[in-house]
């Protein structure tokens, strides 16, 4: 058990400046997810923490000890790889026990610990098998067993679920979360899947182009994204981004989404104080903040408009409907039976009170 502290870390990988000055403090026992699009440097960062790559500059501390220049075996970290990386010529027991054999633990101890881990993961029956005789989910369990058998100070996961089919992925995600609750060791988990990040993390570190774009608790990032990039990356379907102009309307503010359009009352008054010259903004609206209007008046903070539905995508529990707001497409998350076919005109309540506002030049939240 240990905390991990990374300061001013730089790393070139395959001719690319993959990690560009990362500062990161991961408290003991926390589940941190590094997430970002491919090529954002998250895997390189993880491999550098593991010691599989050397840092160009900056320091990595594990448990208060600087580990730069230390071999992977001396860092006392365990890693689960994307392709599982099981040794094909060893049985499951051999795979799980290799780290203990490398440390020359006595044989009875190895057997007991391997069995204990297999028991915990429900793979005791498989101990005598070879990796090629296992299913994807079983291989994944063996890879996790290999990591936990030696009680490392830190667990590193490199996209461990990306090779599994959707159903198995959901199942293993739950197991990894439960595993963290049971053993509460520091875990650093790399993924490009925002749902994995949201569901697993105590803290999300969202990376882009080798830098940290934003970090914090999953819901904080989701509800208060610092940039358009964060807002667009988290959430499925993606947040709608609408160009608009903030105008004064009596005491408050309104937003006009196109020339000649009626300005809609815009509750985020903070935007008004900080809008850059001309009042141009990008309004970020999550699909769940636009729904079918019903009853007399829209709920507080929302405005009701009438719109023609262009496209309907039912998922069973919800239907995603696309309409246009001043010519700009907006995806709304409706109840399953709110809309039956494209072309229908329905009332839509847009909750602008929950909208995010971004500077169109910098992409930063206002």
């Amino acid at each position, binding site marked *: 058990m240990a905390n991990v502290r990374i300061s001013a870390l730089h790393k070139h990988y395959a001719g690319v400046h993959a990690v560009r000055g990362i500062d990161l403090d991961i408290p003991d026992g926390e589940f941190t997810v590094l997430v970002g699009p491919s090529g954002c440097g998250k895997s390189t960062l993880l491999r550098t923490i593991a010691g599989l790559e050397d840092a160009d500059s900056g320091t990595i501390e594990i448990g208060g000890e600087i580990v730069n220049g230390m071999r992977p075996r001396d860092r006392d970290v*365990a890693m689960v790889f994307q392709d599982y990386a099981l040794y094909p*010529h060893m049985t499951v027991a051999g795979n799980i026990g290799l780290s203990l054999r*490398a440390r020359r633990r006595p044989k009875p101890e190895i057997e007991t610990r391997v069995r204990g881990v297999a028991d915990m993961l429900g793979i005791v029956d498989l101990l005598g098998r070879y990796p090629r005789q296992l299913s994807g989910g079983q291989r994944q369990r063996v890879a996790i067993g290999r990591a936990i058998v030696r009680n490392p100070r830190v667990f590193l996961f490199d996209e461990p679920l990306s090779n599994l089919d959707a159903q198995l992925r959901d199942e293993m995600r739950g197991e990894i979360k439960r595993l963290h609750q049971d053993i509460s060791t520091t875990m650093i988990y790399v993924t490009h899947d925002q749902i994995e990040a949201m569901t697993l993390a105590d803290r999300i570190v969202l990376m882009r182009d080798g830098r940290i774009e934003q970090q914090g608790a999953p819901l904080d990032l989701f509800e208060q994204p610092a940039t358009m990039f964060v807002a667009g990356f988290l959430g499925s379907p993606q947040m709608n981004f609408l160009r608009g102009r903030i105008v004064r309307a009596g005491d408050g503010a309104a937003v006009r989404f196109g020339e000649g359009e009626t300005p809609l009352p815009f509750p985020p008054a903070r935007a008004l104080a900080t809008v850059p010259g001309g009042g141009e903004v990008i309004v970020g609206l999550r699909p769940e903040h636009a729904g079918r209007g019903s009853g007399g008046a829209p709920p507080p903070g929302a405005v009701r408009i009438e719109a023609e539905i262009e496209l309907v995508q039912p998922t069973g529990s919800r239907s995603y409907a696309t309409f246009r707001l001043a010519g700009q497409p907006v995806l709304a998350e409706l109840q399953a039976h709110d809309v039956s076919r494209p072309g229908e005109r329905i009332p839509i309540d847009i909750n602008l009170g929950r909208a995010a506002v971004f500077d169109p030049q910098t992409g930063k939240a206002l």
Partner: protein
Amino acid sequence: MAGPATTPPRARRRPGADLLRIACLGVFVIFVLVPLYWMVITSIKPTSDYLAVPPVWFPAEPTIVHYTAALFSYRGLDGLINSLIVASAATVLSTVLGTLMAYSMARFDTGGQHLAFWVLSQRFLPPVAIVLPLFLLFRGWHLYDTHVGLIIVYTFITLPLSVWMMYAYFRQLPRSLEDAALVDGLSRWQALWMVAVPLAAPGIAAAAVFVFVAVWTEFFFALVLTSRHAFTLPTVFRAFLGFQGAQYGEACALATTSLVPSIALGILVQRHLVRGLTLGALRG
């Protein structure tokens, strides 16, 4: 992979096509096997039957006299022992050094492309270009006509082959297996020995067979660099083509004998060999 229960569509062919296929394979088998048969048969024929017309397909009175002559009078046995010593040692050395070099090139990009190409380029050199300098150097270093001298030469001339075969093999082994081993607490040497080498075993076995066969059949360097002590099996065959005419029986007897180690080795590593030659494409 198709299960054995389902009939593959290829099996449903017209009988004509099948016949043609069998005929082609038959011609090929005859082409390969008849010379071998003739060699074995000639080695036990009496001298009068060598060139008899019509040909003698099986001698009425088989004899082993050619074997004793070839092995003892012509010192074929000494050549066989020398060949075994030299080929085994060169195979082990070439495979071990080749494994280390290939692993280093594949994993750490040692020497970049230039070293990899330079290694291969050693095969472009005609043997005749280096045999005389080697002869002169070996005289000076007391390596002429010694096992050690031949082992050194064979190790180095087969190294490009073993390096390249294993380089290709190591390159397609997933790196993450060794990464996992390093994180699991193995040193780089342990990762090589406990993970990479077992997985590369088919490639290493294939390289070893190639090296062994290349050394076993090598004639030119052995001819120039040895004389009465370290001479190898192929050089013994010179003696059978003398002024008195060809000693077909002795030659065939020694040729038959010389096949035994190659065949034994082939059977020994057969399981690995096919996978090694396909460079792990069938890795399951």
